[in-house]
């Protein structure tokens, strides 16, 4: 659905996984941009209605793009820069902060 614009400068490839699938983004991508560029059309399901949700505002206000990053839930994908070897998972249900491994 989304295609990257030509880069003005060469940006290094960054590897990550989303729900166990290996993907590639570019250095400087937000997680949301990298997921959208990989054809991901929803990053979580709504904890109450179960409806699929995807990045929407891309500027940190709508909280639609929540994902789990390296075991920490409710991260805003549009506000978090992609890093090499990140383990990203779709946010399933509400964040269970008690169950997360201490950082």
């Amino acid at each position, binding site marked *: 659905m989304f295609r990257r614009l030509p880069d003005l400068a060469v940006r290094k490839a960054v590897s990550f996984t989303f729900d166990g699938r290996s993907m590639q983004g570019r250095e400087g991508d937000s997680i949301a941009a990298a997921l959208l560029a990989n054809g991901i059309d929803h990053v979580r399901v709504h904890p109450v209605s179960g409806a699929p949700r995807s990045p929407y505002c891309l500027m940190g206000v709508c*909280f639609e793009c929540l994902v789990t990053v390296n075991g*920490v839930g409710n991260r805003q994908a549009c506000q978090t820069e992609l890093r090499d070897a990140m383990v990203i998972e779709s946010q399933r249900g509400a964040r269970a902060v008690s169950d997360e491994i201490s950082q």
Partner: protein
Amino acid sequence: MSEGEKFGEVEIAIVGGGITGASLAWGLSRLGKKVLVLDEGDVAFRASRGNFALIWVQLKGLGFPAYAHWTNWAADAWPGFAQTLSDQTGIDIAFRRSGGLTLALSDDEMEKQAKAWARLREQPDMPACPHERLDHDGIGRLLPDIGPDVVGGFYCPRDGHVNVLRLFAALHRGLALSGVDYRADHRVDAIVPDGTGFRLSGAWGEVGSAKVVLAAGLGNAVLASMIGLTMPVRPVGGHVMVTEKARPFLRYPTTSVRQTDDGGVMIGTSQEERGFDTSVSPAVLSTLAERAIRTFPLLGRLNVVRSWSALRIMTPDGFPIYDRSLRYPGAFGATCHSGVTLAPAHALRLASWIAEDGSSSGLLDVFRGRRFDVPALA
């Protein structure tokens, strides 16, 4: 003045549409009264939208046993009130009488609490106030996520909480369903007794009413003097912040941390004497956050998504004022800083008292504003 604004026949005009004004209007309309609510708009100082949403009995009434009775009555009436409100409006206000805790982060804090409870127990004419002193392990059985700094605290089974924004919405929907005439952006600047009733006016125009009830929060201080009442209220600021939503992990509210039914964790609450200032102070927020994280270390992993400061409506002794004007018997006033806890008492008992012209005063006599009238010394 706007031309042609139409008001129906008004028996009772209530000044203020916050939780207290709306509770009174709701109760009076259920007694068959024709009620008009004149409210400010979104820019009003609005404790109803800024508060911490506790329904709290613990340690209430220290130095004023009648207030303990009044609070206990309200707390006991809450389940039925919540049910009636949700049956009427279809809004679930998430009322939970879960019991609540005050936590201590030092032995000194623990002893202060213990002394306060001892003083409360020694007061004459007190209602039963069940409570339990718990050590760290005892608290941990109720709230497993406490940190090592929590030395203990007190649990009271009568405490609880509510979704206060939905309570506010439900009261207002209830008013609309009961035919109450509610007018936002109708700030009342003047009230003039006219012999048989009162003329209330503002930039929007003027209306006449047989009775007037002040429930204008901090606005009461000025309005009261126009109709022979004493309501010396002042603002006391308080900061609150709320985190991102998380799966429920706090089963009980505490005086400073509670998880809402929506999953956000509210962290409060400070006390500032700084007039009508509602700006947010980062220094105050960081103090609140530091204490909250010492209490529940995992809060450090949650993002705060909003913070605000709001104004409590405080009387000189901290207790409510309910009064009927001696000079103008159709004028009533109500003010308190526990409008959530006391909502059923206001909707049911105070509304009846106003409807019956204050004849069945009883308990309410001790809350009159003239307790603050000090004879001038020669």
